[in-house]
């Protein structure tokens, strides 16, 4: 069974064409991440799936049922928002149980589901507090709890970690991954952060300008990007792109090489000038310039490299990617 099938989904706001012929399948129990730069339409796509926006054309199926005309609350989905969107006038318990009350579930079912969710998310101590009395991380857990109690066919996460600080973001990320394992539910997760995408996803959908650029597992996309955009978007620091003619005169292609595939070599292919060095302890990032081009090398361990120094970087030819002038990958 597929949890979600999108067929030729289009969305326009007046003359602005935001989503262009989107075709995506989400298998049952799969964790799918929509990733892309801001303004690429990923949040709009999520809102179309949720039913908060109507698709201009195309078909949306959730659990093999066409839901184009179904209101959000009847689609069997639950959504977690970036801004938490907790009801300010209700305490945690009531925030979580409101949807169940609307579905006219019995008091026992509500009680049982709420206590189960609050146990999973460590919220037992806060059930009688109001959202204003909670920290950001706790609020986000309540928002997730509100989604869990509905036992939806499909979870939708809209950049749920963007409002949290770095440490909390990492913890919550792991919590969401655990949650996915425990519930075995189908989840769609929208983010602009490639780290979240790489760490959480079974399948990543890379979007740009309302189009799907590539779909695949994180490692597939990382090792085998179809174009320069996907290659540059996934991976941190990002892939280096240089005109190949710097190395081989007359070559019109664009050379792509990942920072970790570069190493300091006596007779390397690239001769550059070190501009800045980031010492991270475990890694050393060297940012160097080659004429007007900037190149980043990620060296494992600690290296004594000074800014201003001349450096020679080498790479192995089988760890390179080539793109044509339009950014399409060349074999």
């Amino acid at each position: 069974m597929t949890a979600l099938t999108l067929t030729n989904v289009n969305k326009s706001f007046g003359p602005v064409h935001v989503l262009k012929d989107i075709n995506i399948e989400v298998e049952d129990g799969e964790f799918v991440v929509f990733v892309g730069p801001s303004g690429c339409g990923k949040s709009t796509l999520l809102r179309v799936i949720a039913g908060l926006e109507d698709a201009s054309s195309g078909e949306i199926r959730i659990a093999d049922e066409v839901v184009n005309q179904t209101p959000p609350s009847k689609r069997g989905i639950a959504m977690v928002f970036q801004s938490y969107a907790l009801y300010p006038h209700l305490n945690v318990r009531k925030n979580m149980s409101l949807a169940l009350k609307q579905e006219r579930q019995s008091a026992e079912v509500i009680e049982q589901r709420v206590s189960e969710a609050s146990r999973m998310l460590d919220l037992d101590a806060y059930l009688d507090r109001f959202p204003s009395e909670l920290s950001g991380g706790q609020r986000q857990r309540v928002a997730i709890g509100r989604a869990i109690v509905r036992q939806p066919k499909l979870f939708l996460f809209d950049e749920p970690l963007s409002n949290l600080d770095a440490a909390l973001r990492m913890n919550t990320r792991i919590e969401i991954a655990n949650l996915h394992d425990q519930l075995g539910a189908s989840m769609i997760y929208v983010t602009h952060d490639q780290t979240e995408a790489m760490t959480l996803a079974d399948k990543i959908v890379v979007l740009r300008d309302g189009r799907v650029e590539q779909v695949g597992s994180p490692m597939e996309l990382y090792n085998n990007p179809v174009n320069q955009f996907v290659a540059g978007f996934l991976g941190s620091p990002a892939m280096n792109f240089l005109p190949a003619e710097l190395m081989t005169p007359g070559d019109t292609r664009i050379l792509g090489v990942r920072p970790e595939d570069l190493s300091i070599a006596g007779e390397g292919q690239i001769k550059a000038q070190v501009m800045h060095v980031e010492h991270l302890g475990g890694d050393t990032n060297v940012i160097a310039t080659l004429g007007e081009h900037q190149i980043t090398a990620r060296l494992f361990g600690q290296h004594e490299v000074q800014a201003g120094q001349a450096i020679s970087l080498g790479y192995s030819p089988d760890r390179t990617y080539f793109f044509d002038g339009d950014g399409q990958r060349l074999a």
Partner: protein
Amino acid sequence: MNKARTNPLNTAAMHGALILYTLIALFPVFVILINSFKTRKAIFREPLALPDADSFSLIGYQTVMKQGDFFLYFQNSLIVTVATLFFVLLFGAMAAFALSEYRFKGNTLMGLYLALGIMIPIRIGTVAILEMMVATGLVNSLWALILVYTAQGLPLAVFILSEFMRQVSDDLKNAGRIDGLTEYTIFFKLVLPLVRPAMATVAVFNMIPIWNDLWFPLILAPAEETKTLTLGSQVFIGQFVTDWNAVLSALSMAILPVLVLYVIFSRQLIRGITSGAVK
């Protein structure tokens, strides 16, 4: 924090200015109040003196109580004001929600059309309104006043409230939709509580002109049983002789309910006026 703000001289100057303004604003009220407790002679001899043993008199209040059915006027004013506020807030908030929340053809045009009412005084249409009221048989009923004041208050209410409703988080409304709340529940349970300060602002801005209005009560509902307080007080003002004791006493009593309503709304009001400025 900013040094200039904690400077005691600046603080003193600021408070001085505020106190001065308070005095200026309260002075007429104070004069009305003290003079309402004085004899007629004392009012004219020393208008600013406090009532003492010689000049103290309740004659004004006695006249007011005897002449006309003052409690009825009072009740009429209260009914008209409270009912109008209710309708203005209810319909104003609903229209504002629709304008700020839903995309439909002519949304902007509708907003502009409603805002137009702020710029055009409703009194221009008095003759037409009177004709309409005569035709519908509403003359000399409180409904005539309530309807006119509601129409008068709506434009500003829609204008202010729609601005505030735009600031209510979209995510919150969408969370409600996904949880299966109806649009009415979202409006009443989620959005209205969040724009309460703005509602209080609208209520106060509408309340005082309605309570004090003489024009429409005089034209649309001058009958004895529908007289408002302001209109009722006019019987003491004659072309040649004015019963100042009675006028001042009536005015003193008229201030009271407005004061009470103001206190109810004021805590919200202060938040409403300053919100956005200090976040």
